[in-house]
């Protein structure tokens, strides 16, 4: 084979594919096929005028963003009862990290909420740093704040764009997506990747900001408010959008808390729970920003809270971008940080340190810790159990949308079939962190 193996065109050998998987085309008999020979003509069919109708929505419905399944019993267009099934993107995150080192977990966290991978990176590293008693330098804190807020804007853009496009307004999606591409260029210049960044390290950052990056941020930030204004102008007072989302999927603040909601979905119902305010980290208490809350707790509020949050994030970035101090980007602690390369080549101690960090990995003290971070979707928590070795004993992710998805059954029952799309979009369920 040539070394250019990137794209491989290969011929299908008949029978080979079928032999390996346990099923073939003929296995799926569970729907009634009138052309089949064994179809029983004397079969008693229920009376279609009175019998309830059962409909499967998903797992690959275009409006389900990722994959899950709603099984609904219909009375006309109204959903009488519904069952929700998830797990179609279950990738065994919690099992696979048990055989990895602590540092190797960072790329996996990227793929939890893939709309905002860097926030997940920070959430994991923050938990690890608290476990090891590390305080990251000021420069790192400010850079983390800036890119977390950039990611928050990008995540909300995808969420709001997607819910509006599901309801039928495609233009807004492109307005948001163009602005998102500009922000993505910034992060690409910084991290080298477009979606799964893996830029954080335990105790710091992978590398420093490239030259002129902060000026680029300032330039790009000027393009975001027009995009938000465009979308808001098209949507906020739009009759069709209001009819589809106002009063749809209403949940009270108390119910939302009982269901374990956090983040913008909860704030749309009233409670102003935002970890950046109640448990500030990385100096969030020193920034001037508001926590937007909704009044009705319907799908409309959930979209509008997100759009308002984008503007608050812009405020934070504007304040933080001028406050990035000079200094190191990683803690000076040989338990987590690799020694500089020239010292590895000249000093025996540094060489051993380098070797042990690479081979054995970071070793936090034994114990259990739960640390939570405000991600675009809500509270992302990492519950880490360490037995003192270089591999995590157990990492449990507390994904925000797992618990909002739990509520879907209760939100859609009694509503119309078309409301499912409007409700689901407002919840911003990201299958990667839902199923892990």
């Amino acid at each position, binding site marked *: 084979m040539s070394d250019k193996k990137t794209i491989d065109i290969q011929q299908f050998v008949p029978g080979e594919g079928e032999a390996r998987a346990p099923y073939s085309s003929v296995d799926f008999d569970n729907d009634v096929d009138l052309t089949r020979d064994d179809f029983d003509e004397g079969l008693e069919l229920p009376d279609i005028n009175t019998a309830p109708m059962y409909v499967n929505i998903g797992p690959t419905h275009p409006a389900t963003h990722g994959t899950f399944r709603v099984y609904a019993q219909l009375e006309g267009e109204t959903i009488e009862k519904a069952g929700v099934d998830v797990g179609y993107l279950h990738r065994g995150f919690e*099992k696979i990290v048990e055989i990895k080192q602590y540092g190797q977990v960072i790329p996996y966290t990227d793929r939890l909420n893939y709309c905002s991978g860097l926030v997940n990176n920070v959430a994991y590293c923050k938990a690890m740093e608290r476990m090891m008693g590390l305080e990251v330098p000021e420069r790192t804190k400010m850079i983390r704040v800036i890119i977390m807020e950039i990611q928050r804007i990008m995540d909300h853009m995808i969420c709001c764009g997607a819910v509006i496009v599901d309801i039928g307004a495609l233009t807004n999606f492109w307005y948001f997506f163009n602005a998102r591409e500009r922000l993505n260029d910034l992060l690409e210049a910084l991290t080298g990747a477009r979606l799964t960044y893996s830029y954080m390290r335990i105790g710091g950052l992978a590398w420093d900001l490239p030259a002129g990056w902060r000026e680029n941020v300032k330039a790009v930030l000027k393009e975001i408010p027009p995009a938000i204004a465009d979308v808001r102008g098209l949507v906020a007072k739009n009759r069709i959008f209001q009819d589809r989302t106002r009063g749809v999927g209403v949940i009270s603040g108390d119910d939302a808390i*009982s*269901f374990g909601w956090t983040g913008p979905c909860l704030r749309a119902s009233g409670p102003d729970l935002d970890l950046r305010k*109640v448990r500030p980290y990385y100096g969030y208490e020193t920034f001037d920003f508001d926590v937007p809350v909704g009044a009705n707790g319907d799908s409309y509020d959930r979209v509008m809270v997100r759009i308002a949050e984008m503007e608050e994030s812009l405020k934070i970035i504007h304040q933080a971008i001028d406050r990035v101090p000079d200094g190191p980007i990683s803690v000076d602690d040989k338990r987590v940080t690799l020694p500089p390369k020239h010292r590895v080549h000249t000093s025996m101690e540094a060489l051993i340190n380098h070797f042990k960090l690479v081979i054995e990995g970071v070793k936090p003290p034994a*114990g259990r810790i*739960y640390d939570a971070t405000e991600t675009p979707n809500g509270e992302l928590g990492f519950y880490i159990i360490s037995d*003192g070795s270089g591999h995590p004993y157990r990492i449990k992710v507390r994904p925000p949308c797992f618990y909002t998805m739990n509520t879907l059954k209760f939100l859609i029952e009694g509503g119309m079939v078309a409301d499912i799309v409007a409700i689901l979009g407002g919840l911003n369920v990201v299958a990667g962190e839902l199923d892990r």
Partner: protein
Amino acid sequence: MSKDNTARHDALVAEIKQQFGAGVLDVDRSFGDCAVIVTRDVVHDVLAYLKHQHRFNLLMDVVGIDCMNLPSYRERFEVSYNLYSVPDDLRVRVEVPVPELDMDVPTATDLWKSANWGEREAFEMFGFNFVGHPCLKRLLTHHEFKGHPLRKDYPVMGGQWCSSTSDMTEELNEPR
């Protein structure tokens, strides 16, 4: 976390110890977190007490743990309820050891609605039997899956093929 909760945690732990006596096995205060380890007999009472008397109105997570190789081994499994109080901004964990041969745990679905899926996940990953749960079915893995994948004795590469569509009548008829 910038705020120090040590004093509030101390008071809470003292109160729970006084209230439940021998039901409290241990207290874990590592890294500034607070975890109360209680027996299975009192776990539901402790959770109800925390919810009603101390306004722990948000059940963040239900975590199953396989303690097979842990130094702090009490029983083979543990369930950890992760609570948060929105009005008081306080976190506490309630952990209950569960032996391998008798994995009944009282459900918390009557206290918090979020316990529904949290307990279903803990059931499918470890095999806990949450007594009183309205619909204890597999959630993330498919319905033909055998075994509990997050147990330490389950092989990492133990994939199992699925060949049919699951029946969701039980979820459909689950009471609201």
